């Protein structure tokens, strides 16, 4: 009985702690949105962050998109050729890339690359009193540090996802048509026929929401870093892990919701 109570206590503590953290992340998100309206936007910083997030992430995102599309096309070909359904590879690859693989993989990479950088940078500033120095100089940290990162990520993530989709679908075509000899005309015709603009919309809206999740969690972790250099490492790891897990969980609910909303008829 004692063990059961002890276990229940631990589970309860984890649950309340998670609720508290989620509440704090939502409060930070609300503060970020309020700061975007209340203060002037620092476009120089937003562009600087967009360069880091958007331009500097292109290679890794495009490579991931390309090989995901290529591998998926190969796998689908191996399965579909048994039933003589090779011409269905195109729409299968394109719909899977748009609805799931493109936004999820692209944003998981962004959580790793950009989320880690955000959390590490902000937590370093926090432990070296730079965040306090900002406040001492009359600058609101949310406005100066978080808003540019948040906006840069929510603008860049859908664009990067779009690029990942294009390269993924393109590489899927290359593998299916040029390597496995699927008829190119059928491939494109079926791809265009069965891929809806709603599929692309799903990709973009998902990556937009994932970008909000990544930036909110990474910035929250960074701004609440425990003192000491060990805190920076811990914060960075937690930011990436929490953002990735949250992204995967939210993806499930988004899939259900968006399908219900967009394909209810």
């Amino acid at each position, binding site marked *: 009985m004692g063990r059961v109570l002890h276990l229940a206590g631990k589970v309860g503590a984890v649950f309340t702690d998670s609720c508290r953290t989620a509440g704090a992340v939502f409060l930070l998100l609300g503060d970020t949105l309020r700061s975007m309206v209340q203060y002037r936007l620092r476009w120089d910083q937003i562009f600087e962050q967009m360069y880091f997030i958007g331009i500097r992430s292109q290679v890794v995102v495009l490579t991931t998109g390309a090989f995901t599309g290529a591998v998926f096309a190969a796998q689908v070909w191996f399965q579909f050729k048994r039933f003589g359904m090779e011409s269905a590879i195109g729409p299968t690859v394109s719909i899977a890339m748009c609805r799931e693989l493109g936004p999820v993989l692209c944003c998981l990479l962004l959580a790793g690359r950009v989320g880690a950088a955000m959390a590490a940078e902000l937590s370093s500033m926090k432990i070296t*009193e*730079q965040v*306090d*120095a900002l*406040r*001492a*100089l*009359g*600058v*609101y940290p949310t406005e100066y540090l978080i808003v540019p990162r948040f906006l840069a990520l929510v603008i860049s993530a859908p664009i990067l996802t779009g690029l990942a989709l294009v390269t993924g679908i393109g590489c899927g075509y290359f593998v299916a048509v040029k390597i496995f000899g699927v008829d190119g005309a059928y491939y494109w015709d079926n791809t265009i026929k069965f891929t809806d603009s709603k599929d692309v919309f799903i990709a973009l809206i998902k990556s937009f929401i994932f970008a909000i999740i990544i930036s909110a969690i990474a910035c929250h972790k960074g701004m609440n870093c425990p003192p000491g250099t060990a805190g920076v490492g811990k914060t960075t790891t937690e930011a990436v892990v929490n953002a990735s897990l949250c992204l995967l969980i939210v993806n499930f609910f988004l899939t259900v919701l968006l399908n219900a909303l967009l394909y209810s008829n």
Partner: protein
Amino acid sequence: MLELQGIRKSMGGQEVLRGVNLRVGPAERVVVIGRSGCGKSVMLRLIMGLLQPEAGSVVFEGKKLTGLSEEEWNPYRRKIGMLFQGAALFDSLSVFANLAFPLREQGERSEEVLRQKVAEALRIVSLSGTEEKMPAELSGGMKKRAALARAIISRPEIMLYDEPTTGLDPIVADSINRLILHLGKMFGMASIVVTHDMVSARMVGDRISYLHEGKIYFEGTPDQVDHCQDPLVRDFVRGHAEGIGITG
């Protein structure tokens, strides 16, 4: 000019300040001494509005600052400068950009005016010619002086110094102490210096307050502190550990 009235503050479940009262007059230099962890830095953060007290209030120029929102605090923060223990220069910005930062935030856009004011502030702290350096390229003492230049560039009415000489060699520490004195005289700034360096305390303080167990335990001129017969104050001033039960 600045007054702390019955300030109470807990950190990590422990009450570190238990009713601190402190008054600083115009152009007065008050040094707060006390053992490590006694709440000296917390007190400065409360004055700056970086922390909020659980009880008591901070009154600046007759205005009660406690309970103000972040936005309401900002005009007062521009009148109060702070030198952080670790200098807290923005490490992604050059020395010039660090010093120009508060001026730009206050709306100064002319590059010529910024160059002129930054050069003047750097000259005061003897760092002329370091405008293009990054904080990582500066020594500990230079970082402190650059941070001091950033804090004084918008001419605050009161300066808060958090352990200004900690971690510096005696020569550099002496230069910082002289700078604190010089700035006070030059601009008529009041100062609160938090330190456990008694050399620094004697040199820069018009008045020294000893913070012990969350309260101002003793207050007096440097001379009165040196001749105080209270065992707690005497042991701290002389650096004796016997009074707290540690005897090698």
